[in-house]
């Protein structure tokens, strides 16, 4: 039972090495995920004037929803506003890179798409951007996940993931939920 000062110090050093090893392992795992697997947070320092969002070239009513860009990239644009998403439903192809771009004209909102890695805050004054690949087809729920006022719990949208072969854009390169 008589533990000497040296015994105590030795046991503490051993434990410190265990702690140091665990921390180093977690560091390494995160660096590997970030640098090699490109698992990175949705940082996107791109500002936009929230007061004229609906007049901006990108977030006008006619430009919202899913569109195939000139380079073939699928981009979905959504406005998050108290207390609805515009549009309420978006279509995306499965197993293909999709870019979601969102902004808010009023207060802070946030989204996640259930069962996927999509999760970002939507901050007025900024354009939020998330790159992802949807692997499962079907209707996914996309609720607002940041308190935005008394109507917060009614604020949600649908992400409709369809097989690549059914994902057919119209002449303008656009795809809307009504077709499915």
């Amino acid at each position: 039972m008589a533990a000497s000062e040296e015994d105590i110090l030795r046991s503490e050093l051993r434990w410190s090495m265990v702690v140091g090893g665990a921390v180093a392992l977690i560091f390494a795992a995160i660096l590997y995920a970030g640098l090699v697997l490109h698992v990175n947070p949705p940082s996107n320092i791109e500002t936009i004037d929230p007061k004229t969002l609906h007049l901006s070239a990108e977030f006008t009513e006619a430009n919202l929803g899913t569109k195939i860009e000139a380079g073939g990239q699928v981009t979905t644009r959504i406005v998050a506003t108290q207390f609805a998403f515009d549009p309420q439903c978006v279509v995306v192809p499965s197993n293909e890179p999709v870019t979601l771009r969102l902004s808010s004209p009023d207060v802070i909102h946030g989204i996640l798409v259930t069962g996927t890695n999509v999760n970002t805050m939507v901050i007025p004054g900024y354009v939020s951007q998330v790159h992802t690949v949807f692997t499962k087809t079907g209707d996914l729920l996309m609720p607002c996940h940041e308190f935005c006022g008394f109507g917060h719990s009614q604020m949600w949208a649908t992400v409709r993931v369809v097989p690549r072969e059914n994902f057919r854009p119209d002449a303008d390169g656009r795809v809307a939920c009504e077709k499915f």
Partner: protein
Amino acid sequence: MKSFERLTLAHLWVAFAAFSVACFFGVWQMWARSPLPAPFVTPDHYFLSVTAHGVSMAFVLTTFFIMGFGYFTAETALERPLPGKTWAWLCFILALAGALMATAAILSGRASVLYTFYPPLTASPIFYLGLVLVVVGSWIWCVLMIVAMSQWKRVNPDAPVPLAMYATVANAVMWLWTTVGVTAEILFIVLPASLGWTDTVDVGLTRTLFSWTLHPIVYFWLFPAYIAFYTMAPQAAGGLLYSDTLGRLSFVLLLLYSLPVGMHHLFMDPQQSTGFKLVQMMLTILVSVPTLLTVFTIAASMEIAGRLRGGRGLFGWIPALPWERPMVLATGLSFVMLFFGGGGGLVNMGYGLNAMIHNTSWVTAHFHLIFGGAVVIM
């Protein structure tokens, strides 16, 4: 009753009053969210309730309890009268007035912005002013703690500061630094907007300033629990503290690492770069170190107590502990919940996994485990 005991008790009464209010709202919220039919459920009642629950738990209960506990520690650990008792009462009245102002604003339904404010949502200016008064009151407390320690040091230049006071002053220093964020947010951005002086709010900046405070505030709450771990639990169990040095090291690390660490609340925000988030993530991992050292030291201290009471074998010392003593039972239960809460924290910390859990009930569960499980229970 001695005058410092009156001072301490006054703080504790306010803290426990806030706790009762918060519990009442918390129970109603669970009821409202359950399948059972609950009365008064409307969105404005619900969010008023969430605001009242958060503000009274996170700001009023904690600040008053910590101030009261600090006065008690200063007088008992340093074994000399607390300096500046008039200031202490002034700071009590200031903080109490602030808490009552914030409560009035919340109950009137004009401050349902939750305890994290979410600008550009705006509440009544009375709400923000009340919270600023609570913070300013706590700054006076911080200065009193530092003064008490330096006076003791002048009389005892060669002796080390007692561990409990050492930790209390570390907490005061940390709090002085970290509350600058939320105070700047309220005074320079949110309050002017709430008063109608300005018509725009830089939301990226308010979120950054608030996060400066938002994580260290948890360590502000945790410090008294850790002080109880180190200075009360081993004696209560009938043993002794395994290592005073490792305790001091833990408190210094907790102070140093918590200074810059709050931005990990913004991993899913657009306005901060990936590189900055990476640095914040690294710092967040390091904050787990003082907690892991504490778990080791306290478990070792408890093992000594258990073995002194005749416990044998690898785990025999655990049933040998005097579990009927509240401080021992609280430490044991607190370690169980700290295990789940801290483990959850390791999940939140990596931004890959953070994308899975950000703004879900997982996070609510994480901070309730830490808050209820470690802070309140101790």
